[in-house]
C-alpha cells in the first residue's frame, strides 16, 4: 500500500498537466487504497466498471459524475490512470461538499470523499485516523438517522435500520456534507449489513443508547464477513474516539468533555455564564484559531442565532464546536445543525421534565435578548448584561445543573428535544422576527404618529379663567376632551356644558377643535384670520418637505383626522347653544392658543399635502410611461 501511496502522490503531482494537486497524507492513503481496489496492480489504469461502481457509490447525481469524469481528464485520456483517478476522487469530495465540479475547487482543503460502497476488506484496515474519517462519515448517517427517527420510533430498541431510514433522508439541519444515504444502492446485502453493523456498534458506543449488546446480536444474521472485522475495527475506533474527545458519532454533536472545555473557555472570557460574550471579544478569541476570516464569519453567522452581535453560552459552544470541526477538516455546513442549536444545547443534558420548562424560560429570555440587541450591537456594557442575565437565569441555571447530570438520560430527552426544539426554534424565529419588524418599521411612521397625536392634545390652560361658574365644568370637559383624544377619540363631552364655541373650529378639520377655544364674535374674526393663516401657511410648504411617499403615514393620519372631524362636528353643533360672555384678556390668550394649534394643524396638513403631491408625481410618471408604451404600440394598429 505504501508503494501505491507514493506512486499515487507522484502521479498526482506529475500527471495533471502541471497542476500540483496537494494531497494530504490521509487523502493519499485513502486514494491509493481506493485506486488499488479499483485497479488491481500491476495494471496502470483502473478498471472502468469498478470505478463506475465506486463513483455511483458516492451518491452524486449521474450528471455530476459525468462532469467529474470529463474534468479529471479520463474521457480525454480514455482511461482512469492514477492521476485522473485522484483528481476524480478530489472532485467527488468537492461535489459532496457542495462545490462546483471544477479544477479550482479541488485546490482547497477538502474532506475525504464518501462512498457507501466500501467493501469489507477496505474497512478492515481502518485503524488510521484517515480512515476513521471515512467510517465516521458513514456512521453518522446511521446514527443521525437513528436519532431523527427516534421521534417516531420512540426509543425502539429493535430499530430496523434499512427501511425507516432510507426514504426520508434530507434533514435540512444536518451538515451538507452528510448525505443521508438510502440503503438501497447497488452493492446489495453486504452493504446493508455494513450499515447495520455501523449502526450497531455505534449504538453500543454512544453513551445514550440503551441497546448495548442486543443490537449486535440482532444483526448477527447478516453476512458474517463484515461483522467481526467491523466490530473489531469499530471498537478500535471507539477507543480512539474516547481518547481524542474531538469527535462523536455525529460530528456536530458536542460531547460532555467538549462541552466542559467550551464552558471553561467561555468562563475565561466571561465569568458569568449567564451573560454574553461581546462580538469583539469573540472575534479576538476565534481569530486565535487561525481560521480564515470568511470562514470565521460564516461560523459566526451560523452560531449567532438571534443575530445580536453577542454569543450566549450555547451559541458560544456551537461556534467553538464549529471551529474545532473546521480545524479538523470538516466542511462547514450551510445551516446550523440541529444538534448545535442553542435550544438544543441548553436542553441537551437536561432531564425530559425540565425540557418544557427550559424552553419556556429560554423563549422568555429571547425577548430579553432581543431588547439588548436594540441597545447595542457591539460592546455589551456590563450594565445591560444584568438585565438579560435575570431573564436568562432560569435557563442558564438549569443548564449549569444539567451539566452535572448523568448523560445516561440523553436518549429520552432527545426525543422530546426534537419535538420541542423545532417549536422553540420556530418560536424563537417568530420572536426574533417580531421585534425586528417593530424596530424596523419605518421610524418616521412612529414620529408621525407621535406628531399626529401631539396637536390634538394641547394643554387646556386658557379655559381655566372663564368667569362663569361653568368654567369649572369647562375645565373638566377640556380635560375630558384631552383624555378622550389620548384614549382614542371618544365621543364628545355631554352636551350640557360644551365649551364656548369658537366658530373658527368649524372650519378647522383638526384636533385643534377639541380644545375649544374661545367664545364669541371675536372668534369670528379670529376664525377668519386663522383660516387665512391656514391658507397662507399651507401654500409655502406645497413644495414637499418630504418627497418620500408615505402611504402608511397617510393611512395613519387620515384615521387620526377623521375621528377628530367626527368629534369636532358634533361639538360645534352644541356650542352655539351656550350663551357667551366676552372678556378680552381671555380672548387674547385664546387667540394665541388658537394660533398655536392652527400652526400645528398646518404642519400636519402640509405634510399630508406634500405626500399627496409626491404620490401625484409618481402617478404622473407612471402615466407618462404608460402613454409612451401606448404610443409605441399605436402605430402598429393604425397601419
Amino acid at each position: 500500500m505504501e508503494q501505491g501511496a507514493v506512486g499515487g502522490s507522484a502521479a498526482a503531482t506529475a500527471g495533471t498537466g502541471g497542476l500540483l494537486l496537494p494531497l494530504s497524507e490521509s487523502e493519499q492513503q485513502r486514494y491509493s487504497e481506493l485506486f488499488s481496489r479499483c485497479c488491481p496492480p500491476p495494471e496502470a489504469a483502473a478498471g472502468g466498471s469498478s470505478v463506475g461502481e465506486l463513483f455511483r457509490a458516492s451518491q452524486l447525481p449521474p450528471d455530476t459524475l459525468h462532469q467529474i469524469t470529463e474534468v479529471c481528464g479520463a474521457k480525454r485520456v480514455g482511461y482512469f490512470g492514477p492521476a485522473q483517478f485522484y483528481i476524480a476522487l478530489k472532485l467527488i469530495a468537492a461535489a459532496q461538499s457542495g462545490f462546483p465540479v471544477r479544477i479550482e475547487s479541488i485546490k482547497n482543503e477538502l474532506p475525504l470523499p464518501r462512498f457507501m460502497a466500501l467493501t469489507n476488506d477496505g474497512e478492515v484496515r481502518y485503524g488510521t485516523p484517515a480512515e476513521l474519517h471515512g467510517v465516521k462519515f458513514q456512521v453518522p448517517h446511521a446514527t443521525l438517522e437513528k436519532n431523527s427517527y427516534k421521534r417516531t420510533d420512540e426509543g425502539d430498541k429493535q430499530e430496523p435500520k434499512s427501511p425507516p431510514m432510507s426514504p426520508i433522508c434530507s434533514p435540512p439541519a444536518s451538515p451538507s456534507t452528510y448525505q443521508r444515504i438510502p440503503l438501497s444502492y447497488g452493492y446489495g446485502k453486504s452493504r446493508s449489513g455494513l450499515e447495520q453493523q455501523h449502526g450497531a456498534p455505534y449504538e453500543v458506543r454512544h453513551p445514550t443508547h440503551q441497546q448495548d449488546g442486543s443490537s449486535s446480536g440482532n444483526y448477527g444474521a447478516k453476512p458474517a464477513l463484515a461483522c467481526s472485522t467491523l466490530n473489531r475495527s469499530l471498537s478500535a475506533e471507539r477507543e480512539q474516539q474516547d481518547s481524542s474527545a474531538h469527535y462523536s458519532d455525529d460530528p456536530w454533536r458536542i460531547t460532555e468533555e467538549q462541552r466542559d472545555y467550551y464552558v471553561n473557555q467561555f468562563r475565561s472570557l466571561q465569568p458569568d455564564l449567564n451573560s454574553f460574550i461581546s462580538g469583539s471579544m469573540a472575534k479576538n478569541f476565534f481569530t486565535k484559531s487561525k481560521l480564515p476570516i470568511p470562514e470565521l464569519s460564516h461560523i459566526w453567522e451560523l452560531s449567532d442565532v438571534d443575530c445580536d452581535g453577542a454569543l450566549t453560552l450555547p451559541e458560544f459552544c456551537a461556534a467553538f464546536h464549529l471551529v474545532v470541526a473546521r480545524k479538523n477538516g470538516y466542511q462547514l455546513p450551510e445551516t446550523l445543525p440541529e444538534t448545535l442549536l442553542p435550544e438544543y444545547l441548553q436542553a441537551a443534558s437536561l432531564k425530559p421534565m425540565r425540557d418544557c420548562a427550559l424552553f419556556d424560560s429560554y423563549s422568555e429570555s429571547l425577548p430579553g435578548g432581543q431588547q439588548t440587541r436594540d441597545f447595542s450591537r457591539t460592546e455589551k456594557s456590563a450594565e445591560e448584561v444584568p438585565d438579560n442575565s435575570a431573564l436568562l437565569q432560569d435557563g442558564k441555571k438549569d443548564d449549569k445543573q444539567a451539566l452535572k447530570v448523568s448523560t445516561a438520560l440523553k436518549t429520552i430527552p432527545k426525543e422530546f428535544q426534537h419535538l420541542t426544539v423545532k417549536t422553540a426554534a420556530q418560536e424563537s424565529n417568530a420572536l426574533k422576527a417580531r421585534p425586528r419588524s417593530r424596530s424596523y418599521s419605518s421610524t418616521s411612521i412612529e414620529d408621525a404618529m407621535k406628531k399626529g397625536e401631539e396637536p390634538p392634545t394641547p394643554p387646556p390652560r386658557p379655559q381655566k379663567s372663564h368667569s362663569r361658574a361653568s368654567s369649572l365644568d369647562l375645565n373638566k370637559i377640556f380635560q375630558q376632551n384631552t383624555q378622550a383624544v389620548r384614549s382614542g377619540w371618544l365621543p364628545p363631552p355631554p352636551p350640557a356644558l360644551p365649551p364656548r364655541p369658537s366658530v373658527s373650529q368649524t372650519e378647522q378639520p383638526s384636533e385643534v377643535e377639541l380644545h375649544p377655544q374661545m367664545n364669541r364674535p371675536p372668534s369670528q374674526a379670529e376664525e377668519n384670520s386663522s383660516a387665512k393663516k391656514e391658507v397662507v401657511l399651507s401654500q409655502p410648504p406645497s413644495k414637499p418637505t418630504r418627497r418620500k411617499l408615505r402611504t402608511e403615514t397617510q393611512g395613519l393620519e387620515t384615521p387620526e383626522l377623521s375621528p377628530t372631524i367626527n368629534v369636532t362636528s358634533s361639538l360645534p353643533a352644541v356650542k352655539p347653544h351656550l350663551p357667551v360672555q366676552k372678556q378680552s384678556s381671555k380672548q387674547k390668550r385664546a387667540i394665541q392658543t388658537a394660533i398655536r394649534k392652527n400652526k400645528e394643524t398646518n404642519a400636519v396638513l402640509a405634510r399630508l399635502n406634500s405626500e399627496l403631491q409626491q404620490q401625484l408625481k409618481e402617478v404622473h410618471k407612471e402615466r407618462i410611461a404608460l402613454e409612451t408604451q401606448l404610443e409605441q404600440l399605436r402605430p402598429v394598429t393604425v397601419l
Partner: protein
Amino acid sequence: LVLLSVICCPQNYPLYIRSVPTENELKFHYTVHTSLDVVDEKISAMGKALVDQRELYLGLLYPTEDYKVYGYVTNSKVKFVMVVDSSNTALRDNEIRSMFRKLHNSYTDIMCNPFYNPGDRIHSRAFDNMVNSMMMQVC
C-alpha cells in the same frame, strides 16, 4: 420580477450585487449607477433639519420603458437599489417596501457579525440565500 439588487455603501461603491442572469446585465449596472445620483438628490434635498423625518423608502426613482428603479436608503446612508421589470405590474409598492425591509434586516444581521468590516463586499451565504429567495419569489 426583480432583475437586480444592489447595496451600495455611503461612498457609493457597491457592497453587493445580485442579478438575475440576463444578457445586457451591464446595462442594469449602469442604470443603478446613474440612479445613485437620484438617490443622492433625494436625500440631500431634505435638508439638515429634517434628517430624522426622512423616510427610508425612497420609492420609484425613475421609470423607463422597460423597467423601474426603486431606492431605499438607511440612516447611515447605505443605499439599496432594485431594478424591477416593468412588465410585472403585479408588483405593488407595498411589496417593494417589504422587500427592502427584508434586505435591511438581513443587512443588519450581517453588520452584527464582528468579522464583517463595514465597507467590505458581502460574502455571506445566508444573505445570498435570502436575496435569492426574495428575488425568485417575485417572479
